[in-house]
């Protein structure tokens, strides 16, 4: 019954909605999402239309079924992972590739719904924020190096690791650089960084405008042949791009081989959405149901191929813009989806002439934002810092997917380490030793205590276990063994009453 309540859209926020504020917030989010949607579609390796459809339909469904002002839609890491997963199976951008991206999105959505049925939201509580930060910074670095490819005409196949790209650029830039493309990307990035001081949230729009203006000028003066500029091309949007994902034998074979990847994408998408929801729950909306958010994420991803688009996730930067503009309810996300339709319809013909170096610039700006946006707060704590560094290094050197795995393991490890930490405070009273134990005593946390007690078998010790909430059989056995050992050596081990 409670499952049904979570699965059905809930409009209880409707009574307390400030429609005007939500509309302003939604519209601003929509302005932001258009350049991002095109960029992320490029990252996923599909036509720009799919990114815009993602902003419209996945964004709308996530808000419609959700209960938070979180703005969903195309997501950097999810798009990159979709692209990387499908790349070995079909030629990037071909119809088969696109079909594979869609069925993979369907599978990701179904896995997320499965996680919802298993009450998975609770698990994501253990996903360390430091690990998420590590993934984000890693993706940021990845984006900046990918932007180099677009801006300098670097072939993506030439380098396997990000540092190789810098090497190639450093030693053979004369052969790679199209000076016009590099200029346009440079102007876009510079404009973005300058505008960021004035408008820390919506600077990307200005950067795209300035970059396109410079690009248009170069293109207009030199023409396509001399400038060798790559353009976005026609974006042909349909009002309702309904589609039934094809499931032939080829698609089943593909799905069979990409289950682990789909799980990684599903987990990453949910992790990002739930971290946002957790922040929102702390700051904006008190009665946020995390399970409902998981379902909303799952259903929007599962339904995405039926609207000719790919899976998305909650967006950190667009949500924070919407919340700053005063969004409190899912209405903001729904209005944002509608506004994207309007903006894309008005801008549609102009988008044709959008130079791809501007997209590369946006990629670099998003990447820089992902690195800058995170306070390096986790580094202050030693263990959290280690989780962050481990995740970041694995994302950068071992790939995004493996990085996510490492993030999960590191988070769990961090959790285990913090749980199994036992504090011993030793005080001496004459020749009697008194030890106050704080923390859980179980098989993994016994070591320090056992070592301490075994060091001097003839000592007389009183063990105070009143601050031990949990003591497992292994711990009891250990204490009994030491009691026996001390009895043999003339020592003593008493346990203070658990009064």
């Amino acid at each position, binding site marked *: 019954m409670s499952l049904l309540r979570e699965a059905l859209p809930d409009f209880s926020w409707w009574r307390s909605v400030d429609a005007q504020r939500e509309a302003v917030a939604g519209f601003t989010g929509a302005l932001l999402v258009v350049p991002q949607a095109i960029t992320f579609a490029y990252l996923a390796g599909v*036509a*720009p239309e799919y990114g815009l459809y993602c902003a419209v339909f996945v964004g709308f469904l996530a808000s419609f079924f959700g209960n938070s002002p979180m703005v969903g839609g195309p997501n950097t890491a999810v798009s990159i992972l979709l692209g990387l997963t499908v790349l070995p199976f*079909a*030629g*990037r*951008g*071909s*119809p*088969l*590739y696109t079909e594979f991206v869609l069925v993979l999105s369907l599978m990701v959505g179904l896995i997320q719904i499965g996680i919802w049925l298993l009450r998975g939201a609770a698990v994501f509580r253990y996903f360390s924020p430091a690990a998420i930060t590590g993934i984000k910074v890693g993706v940021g670095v990845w984006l900046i190096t990918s932007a180099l490819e677009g801006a300098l005409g670097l*072939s993506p196949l030439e380098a396997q690791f990000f540092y190789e790209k810098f090497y190639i650029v450093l030693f053979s830039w004369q052969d790679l650089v199209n000076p016009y493309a590099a200029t346009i990307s440079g102007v876009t990035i510079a404009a973005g960084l300058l505008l960021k001081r004035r408008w820390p949230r919506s600077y990307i729009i200005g950067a795209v405008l300035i970059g396109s203006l410079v690009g248009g*000028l170069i*293109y*207009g*003066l*030199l*023409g*396509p*042949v*001399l*400038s060798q500029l*790559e*353009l*976005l*091309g*026609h*974006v*042909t949007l349909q009002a309702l791009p309904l589609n039934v994902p094809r499931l*032939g*034998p*080829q698609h089943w074979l593909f799905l069979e081989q990409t289950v682990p990847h789909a799980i990684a994408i599903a987990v990453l998408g949910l992790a990002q959405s739930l971290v946002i929801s957790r922040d929102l729950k702390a700051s904006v909306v008190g009665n946020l149901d995390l399970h409902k958010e998981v379902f909303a994420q799952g259903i929007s991803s599962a339904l995405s191929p039926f609207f000719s688009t790919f899976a998305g996730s909650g967006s950190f930067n667009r949500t924070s813009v919407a919340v700053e503009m005063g969004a409190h309810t899912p209405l903001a996300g729904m209005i944002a989806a509608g506004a994207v339709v309007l903006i894309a319809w008005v801008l549609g013909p102009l988008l*044709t002439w959008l130079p*791809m170096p501007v997209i590369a610039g946006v990629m670099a700006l998003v990447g820089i934002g992902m690195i800058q946006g995170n306070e390096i707060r986790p580094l202050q704590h030693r263990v959290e810092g280690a989780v962050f560094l481990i995740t970041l290094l694995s994302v950068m050197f071992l790939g995004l997917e493996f990085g996510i795995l490492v993030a999960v393991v590191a988070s769990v490890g961090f959790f285990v380490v913090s749980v199994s930490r036992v504090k011993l405070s030793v005080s001496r009273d004459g020749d009697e030793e008194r030890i106050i134990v704080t923390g859980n005593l179980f098989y993994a946390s016994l070591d320090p205590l056992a070592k301490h007690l075994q060091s001097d078998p003839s000592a007389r010790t009183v063990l105070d276990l009143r601050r031990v909430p949990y003591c497992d059989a292994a711990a009891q056995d250990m204490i009994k063994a030491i009691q026996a050992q001390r009895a043999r050596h003339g020592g003593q081990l008493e346990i203070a009453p658990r009064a």
Partner: protein
Amino acid sequence: MRFKSMNRAFLAILGILVLLGCSPAALARPTIEELKARAVLDDYESNVVFGYNIVMQTNRYAGRYAGSALSCTSCHLKGGTQPDGFPLNVAGVYPKWRSKNGVRNGIGLRVRDCFLYSLNGVMPPEESAEVQAVAAYISYLSEGEVIGRPPKGWGVPTLPDTGADPNPPRGQAVYKRECVICHGADGEGSGPIPPVWGLNSYNAGAGLNNIQRLAGFIWANMPMGKERSLTHQEALDVAAFLNLQHRAFDPRDGRLKKLAERIYHRLSTITGKASP
């Protein structure tokens, strides 16, 4: 006896194998329809089918980079299988140097040029799926051709010298007599019939915007059903007429630069007229 019959069977099998070996063309590629009917295509085959779709319906399958109402098959007749109608079985002649862009052209750049000039669209990147697919389709059509040797019926025939200059007014008369039924009074075309001038047709940088080449194409392939019925002179006249019509400008010039040049010319003619 037994040995003899086995020997005969062996000989028969050998004979069949030899026959099969001698006729590689008969064993060659499956048709596009056969490919489309298959449940599973490998990457090359699915790419070929995609390329065929692009060639037949460019606006639908490569709409991102197409810029006019033309499809590839508007000039590369019958999906690029018509000799003397710009056939596409040309994989064996590339890479080759072309005066058009002054560099050695691989098949990819050649296809991209078609998008930019003949389709009056946006030049797709070399690694785009559309370019790769058309290149795969060209390879598929080129199966059995000799590498390095131009295929039979390559391009269009070069018309012999008629001894007279192309005459656009007479070409207009021929157009009204022979072409207007399909291509329309304003050269606008309809449905699968391509527009022959205007902003929806090929631009001024396209290969067909050359009178000799266009005349060869028209003579060998037009009017459809009555091919080679025009005289060489008539074909030249129609070509001259068509190439005088309005069409999108040559993308080798920048638009802004062109605009500035036009304004400058206009101003200088005005001042030139005013001064004396």
